[in-house]
């Protein structure tokens, strides 16, 4: 990195042609304000394309708002993490940029006793508090599930009259919407209750190991704390079980062709079919509340609403079973390997470091299951229910003539949805047409064009001047952004045939590139290809049987892609900054997951 190297200012970035007016789609507080230019340009911002790789529809911005706000509150107000407050975030040209907020050095000391007391309490009572978390989150999901949006009737029900209720149906509709948003807010508060502490304890172990063995691969440290039975892998495991059951019951051929309905009908006609259908039904709750995306987009397709996705994976597994392949994750081998790695490093430690190793490893292993598992409960299960409920509301608007598709709701931001609800109820109450059916269709069309235009331009990896050295712990832990990775982004543009990133999962392979920018393109992947993506979601696991390696733009050792690749034994290079924009479909690549190098061969 040269002394003059810097990233562009957001104020100097051009709006993509056709995206003019995008600013109005998002709340004022998510934008770089002209009046604050000096202050905003004095901060370093990195693009979080790890979680939000494509431009936000207006409604979807709620995910970044709630997630990053709640992340911040736990640092700043719950645990008083001494050196770190939260993370500022802005949306620019449809992508979000983050800037962590450090605590002024003179204030750090005062926070230490509070941190020790508060975070200390969580660490000491981790298992009990986590059991409580599990209850809270399941109750929250049940509350979300119980929400019901009802279209407005011709008249208020008679028993509301005779019961003297004194309210109309719009009241419940608005209340249910507000409650949905509040439950979503709660979801994201819970998400961060344990996450920051979990990562901090992991980082402590990580940092200790790096101190002992300066060149120890990050993945070796990760392997020592990784769980074997992980809820995040359950959905995929359920599909494997269903595939094996289908083969065992002799109904594999009935499952293999036709639409979902046709296949299930064929199964129901088969002897033993009922047994398989029962298992298929049972697996769905909760394990099909699982998305091929990452939960942050209304466009994410959840299995439970798109049964063709899990059925497609089951069909792939059946084919592999019939070829005699082993499809189970080798959990015993993974556990043995974890023990072997742990004991071999332990043996190389000096005697005085052994006790610290045991202590830090113990804490890291206590906290790590949360880091791995929360993803299923929040991003998959909770978000599955939330998006489904919002689509139900979108359908009510659709039926009331506000727009053509239920999903058009997501072209409104969350405040506008409330306005539209009032408009809908207002017209209904007044007995005159609502304005929305006239106002929204052309407006949604206009917004769709803006979204399409935003998507044509990839985000900047970062904005403004990077600091000389990244020391902010959450930038490193949660985003895997280091002084080195920023240097690579800056130097990157120069080298056109070589990319480097994090050596996230070992092994060397060569193969053809398949660039996938969203989950919808997963179907294009062919056997033996190398998946190149801005970021991958763990739920892409079922396609891992087809591909030979993964290269991502962003993500660290603990990114979902890295965790899953190590589980599946696939080489992976993460955090290249630009793989998905500089590699073209069909190019031959060599991926070295042990050194973090990706070479474009032709």
């Amino acid at each position, binding site marked *: 990195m040269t002394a003059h190297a810097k990233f562009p200012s957001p104020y100097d970035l051009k709006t993509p042609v056709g995206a003019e007016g995008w600013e109005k789609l998002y709340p004022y507080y998510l934008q770089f304000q002209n009046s604050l230019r000096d202050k905003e340009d004095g901060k370093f911002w990195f693009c979080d394309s790890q979680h939000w790789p494509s431009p936000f529809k207006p409604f979807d911005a709620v995910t970044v708002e709630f997630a990053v706000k709640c992340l911040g509150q736990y640092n700043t107000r719950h645990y008083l993490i*001494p*050196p770190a407050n939260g993370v500022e975030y802005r949306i620019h040209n449809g992508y979000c940029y983050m800037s962590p907020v450090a605590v002024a050095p003179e204030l750090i000391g005062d926070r230490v006793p509070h941190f020790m007391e508060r975070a200390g309490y969580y660490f000491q009572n981790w298992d009990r508090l986590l059991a409580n978390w599990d209850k809270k989150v399941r109750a929250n999901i049940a509350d979300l599930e119980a929400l019901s949006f009802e279209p407005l009737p011709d008249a208020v029900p008679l028993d509301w009259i005779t019961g003297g209720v004194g309210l109309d149906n719009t009241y419940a509709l608005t209340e249910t919407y507000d409650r949905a948003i509040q439950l979503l807010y709660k979801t994201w508060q819970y998400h961060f209750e344990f996450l920051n502490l979990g990562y901090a304890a992991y*980082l402590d172990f*990580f940092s200790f190991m790096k101190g002992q063995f*300066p*060149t120890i691969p990050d*993945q070796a440290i990760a392997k020592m704390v990784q769980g074997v039975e992980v809820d995040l892998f359950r959905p995929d495991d359920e599909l494997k079980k269903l595939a094996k059951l289908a083969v065992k019951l002799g109904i594999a051929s009935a499952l293999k062709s036709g639409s979902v309905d046709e296949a299930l009908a064929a199964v129901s006609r088969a002897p033993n079919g009922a047994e398989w259908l029962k298992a298929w039904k049972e697996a769905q709750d909760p394990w099909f509340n699982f998305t091929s995306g990452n939960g942050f987009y209304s466009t994410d397709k959840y299995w439970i609403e798109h049964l063709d996705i899990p059925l497609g994976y089951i069909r792939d597994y059946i084919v592999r079973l019939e070829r005699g392949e082993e499809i189970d994750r080798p959990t015993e081998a993974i556990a043995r390997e974890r023990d072997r790695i742990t004991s071999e490093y332990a043996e190389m430690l000096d005697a005085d470091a052994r006790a610290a190793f045991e*202590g*830090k490893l113990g*804490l890291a292993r206590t906290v790590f299951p949360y880091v791995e598992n929360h993803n299923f409960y929040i991003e998959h299960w909770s978000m599955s229910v939330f998006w489904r409920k919002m689509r139900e509301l979108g359908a009510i608007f659709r039926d009331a003539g506000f727009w053509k598709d239920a999903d058009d709701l997501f072209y409104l931001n969350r405040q506008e949805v409330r306005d539209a609800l009032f408009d809908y109820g207002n017209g209904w109450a007044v007995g005159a047409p609502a304005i929305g059916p006239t106002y929204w269709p052309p407006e949604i069309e206009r917004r769709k064009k803006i979204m399409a235009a935003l998507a044509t331009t990839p985000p900047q990896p970062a904005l403004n001047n990077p600091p000389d050295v990244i020391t902010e712990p959450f930038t490193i832990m949660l985003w895997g952004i280091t002084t080195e990775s920023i240097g690579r982004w800056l130097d990157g543009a120069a080298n056109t045939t070589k990319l480097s990133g994090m050596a996230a999962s070992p092994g060397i392979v060569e193969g053809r590139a398949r660039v996938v920018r969203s989950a919808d393109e997963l179907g294009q992947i062919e056997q033996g290809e190398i998946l190149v993506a801005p970021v991958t979601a763990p739920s892409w696991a079922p396609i891992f049987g087809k591909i030979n390696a993964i290269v991502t733009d962003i993500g660290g050792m603990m990114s979902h892609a890295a965790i899953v690749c190590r589980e599946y034994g696939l080489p992976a290079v993460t955090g290249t900054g630009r793989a998905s924009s500089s590699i073209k479909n069909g190019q031959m690549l060599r991926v070295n997951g042990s050194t973090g190098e990706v070479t474009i061969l032709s």
Partner: protein
Amino acid sequence: MGANAAASFIVPFEAACADDFPRIGGKCASLARMIAQGVRVPQGFAVTTDAYALHLRSNGLAATISERLARIVLDDVDDEERLSHEIRDAIVAQPMPAAVEQSIREAYRRMSPDGQLPVAVRSSATAEDLPDASFAGQQDTYLWVVGEDVVVEKVKACWASLFNARAISYRAENGLGQIDVLMSVGVQKMVNASAAGVAMTLDPINGDRTKIVIDSAFGLGEPVVSGEITPDNFVVEKVLLQVIKQRISEKDFELVADRAARRTVERVIAPERRTLPSLTNAQVLAVARLAKSLERSMGCPQDVEWAIDADLPEDDNLVALQSRPETVWSQKKKQTTAVYETGIAGVLGTLLAPIQAKR
């Protein structure tokens, strides 16, 4: 010596037990130990220190040597070199005791009924391979020795090399004694090496025990050990067994067998082959696994010489030539005793000074 003399002069590697180790020297003992642990080692036998001792006792040879040694002025290089030469000439000129010679000839014939098996004849000193006496390679090694007459001759040459000037000085400086230092000689089947080299189970640059560092070149390993060529260098992460760094160098010659001439020759490597890696990735990992298992069974970091034997089946052709304790880093004492915080205090420390700041 008595009726059982032959047994005392020769110990086949595979038959050596711990009691024999003092009599067969460090190098041969290490080979015997490796065999006992199931490591593939080229076959061979040790000519014990008893054989050397008997040679010294014959015809007053020991007295001749002691007399020359007494005259050596250590700082006078020319004088030392001259007297060293006289000692070595005396050792070689002296006929080997018949019982010793007979034992060596028989042992060689057992390995090679047709008498044509090429062997390496190496010194196996009793002090050389001790962890605190790193003067490896100060005695001679004879490669590609064929026929029992030559074997006998080279055993004597090895004995003589115990008194080369460098070894004499070293022992004097380290108070190791001279005439009372005994030597064993190893006679071992030559490896028809397509590649060979050295593996250390720590990084010799910084003592990092999580690394296995391999130097490798085409042909026999001697040029790698002696530093005559710049070998390929591979760094393997020890626990994950991943090649994390490799530097392929230009190797302009290789030491190979000239079977007809019964010797090794330096053969020029064709330009297009010079910059090819001398080991495949799989072979690098096999060498690393071998070194790692030797470190584990020996209980301390090892310095391993190995070769890929072209005469053996392709997927199982790695042999260990010797393994000895690493001597530099293993003896370093840690400067300070660190204090580590654990639990919440540890987490706090890390948050206040994250890893990036420490690098």
